[in-house]
């Protein structure tokens, strides 16, 4: 039995390749819940845990002002995403991070763990989808980069292959309002019943809208996005309440929510319509 604690990416990849069934542990906030509940026996029987929290390449982030992108290591925590200057570079990601769990969870939980878990309710995922972020993967067989929309395949299903690690994500730094909002039973420690991210790109005059918890994985809302680009008053930065509401309704029409133990499909549709409308009005106040 072994706990492997690599300190660089090369050592982490070698460990993952030597033990492809190993339990990979970042902040532990998803994995340890399962371990405690006895659900990870198979992985633990493989006798290896690979601990990523000291891999230096995964803990870093960098800003490229020329390309106007930020690249986040997979091991960047929610607490770090909420801290300046990252919070101003990627404001919707900071806003989403603020809604995650509790201080204890945000101190440990990572963006890479959120991506790998790929829950429909993962709070960073609608933001990464709306930003058209790229996910960087690596194994001893090589590196590859996938648009986040191709990385997330379904409920808790991703494009990760055996022995492969998430290295990080690259997202654009955009000019314009952006925000994330979710609905849950209370403010703290809550899994989203429905969530939405709206990102305005003033330079391209387009709006990107993504929804969480209303489909097997995160969805974008192309019809609502086109409607927004065509109907917002870009010169004055304003929108009539009717336009904002219509964008919300169109976004909800793209949702495929279900009834489950946390909510109903009807409630979820209504919630995303309102969340999107509100987020649009935050960027484009009433005309």
């Amino acid at each position, binding site marked *: *039995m*072994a*706990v492997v*604690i690599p300190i660089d990416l090369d050592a982490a990849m070698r460990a993952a390749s030597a033990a492809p069934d190993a339990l990979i*542990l970042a*902040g*532990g*906030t998803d994995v*340890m*819940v399962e*371990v*405690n*509940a006895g659900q*990870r026996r198979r992985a*633990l029987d493989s*006798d290896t*845990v690979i*601990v990523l*929290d000291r891999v230096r390449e995964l803990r870093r982030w960098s800003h490229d002002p020329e390309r106007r992108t930020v690249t986040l290591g997979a091991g960047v925590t929610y607490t770090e995403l909420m801290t300046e200057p990252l919070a101003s570079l990627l404001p919707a990601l900071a806003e989403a991070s603020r809604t995650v*769990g*509790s*201080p*204890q*969870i945000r*101190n*440990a939980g990572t963006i890479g763990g959120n991506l790998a878990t790929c829950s429909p309710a993962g709070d960073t995922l609608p933001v990464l989808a709306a930003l058209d972020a790229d996910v960087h993967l690596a194994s001893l067989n090589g590196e590859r980069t996938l648009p986040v929309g191709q990385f997330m395949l379904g409920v808790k299903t991703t494009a990760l292959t055996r022995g492969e690690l998430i290295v990080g994500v690259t997202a654009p730094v955009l000019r314009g309002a952006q925000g994330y909002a979710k609905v849950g039973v209370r*403010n*703290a*420690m809550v899994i989203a019943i429905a969530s939405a991210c709206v990102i305005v790109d003033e330079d391209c005059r387009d709006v990107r809208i993504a929804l969480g918890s209303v489909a097997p994985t995160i969805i974008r809302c192309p019809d609502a996005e086109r409607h927004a680009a065509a109907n917002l008053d870009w010169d004055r930065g304003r929108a009539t309440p009717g336009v904002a509401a219509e964008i919300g309704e169109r976004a909800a029409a793209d949702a495929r929510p279900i009834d489950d133990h946390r909510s109903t499909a009807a409630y979820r549709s209504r919630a995303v319509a309102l969340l999107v409308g509100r987020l649009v009005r935050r960027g484009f106040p009433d005309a």
Partner: protein
Amino acid sequence: MPEFYELQINGSAHDVHDAWLGESLLYVLRERLGFTGTKSACEEGECGSCSVLVDDVLVCACLALAGSATGKTVTTVEGLAATGTPSDVQQAFVTAGAVQCGFCTPGLIVAAHALLTESPEATGQEIREALSGNVCRCTGYGRILEAVAAAARARLAAGAGSIDDRGET
């Protein structure tokens, strides 16, 4: 991997022998090493009663793999003050009457210490936010919030940085 690993807890080294790979830091603290101040309730990160500091960062011990904490420093509620001499936060809880059954108290004390180390000037909303990962089923929170606010005011009055119960600056 050797048959044992070493954890640094409250300033001293402790060997953990013959442990199962998947044991949480919470389990090892309580069941193997006898640090029973750290409480176990939900074991899924929801209640905060297992709050500890790992390398001075507030986390849930139930969500930390014990074997991954080697080479880091772990501070439990027992490590915040010498036995018999409560820390300012502990004393504030007593003074405010913030303890009923007491099960949530150690986790709250550790979370409050983490907050006041980071932001000694914390007030109302910030205190609520900082304690939002700690559940109390008895008190209704009012006196807990009062206790932490009182400890913050006292630290501020004494001058930021001059009081640090963990003996660090």
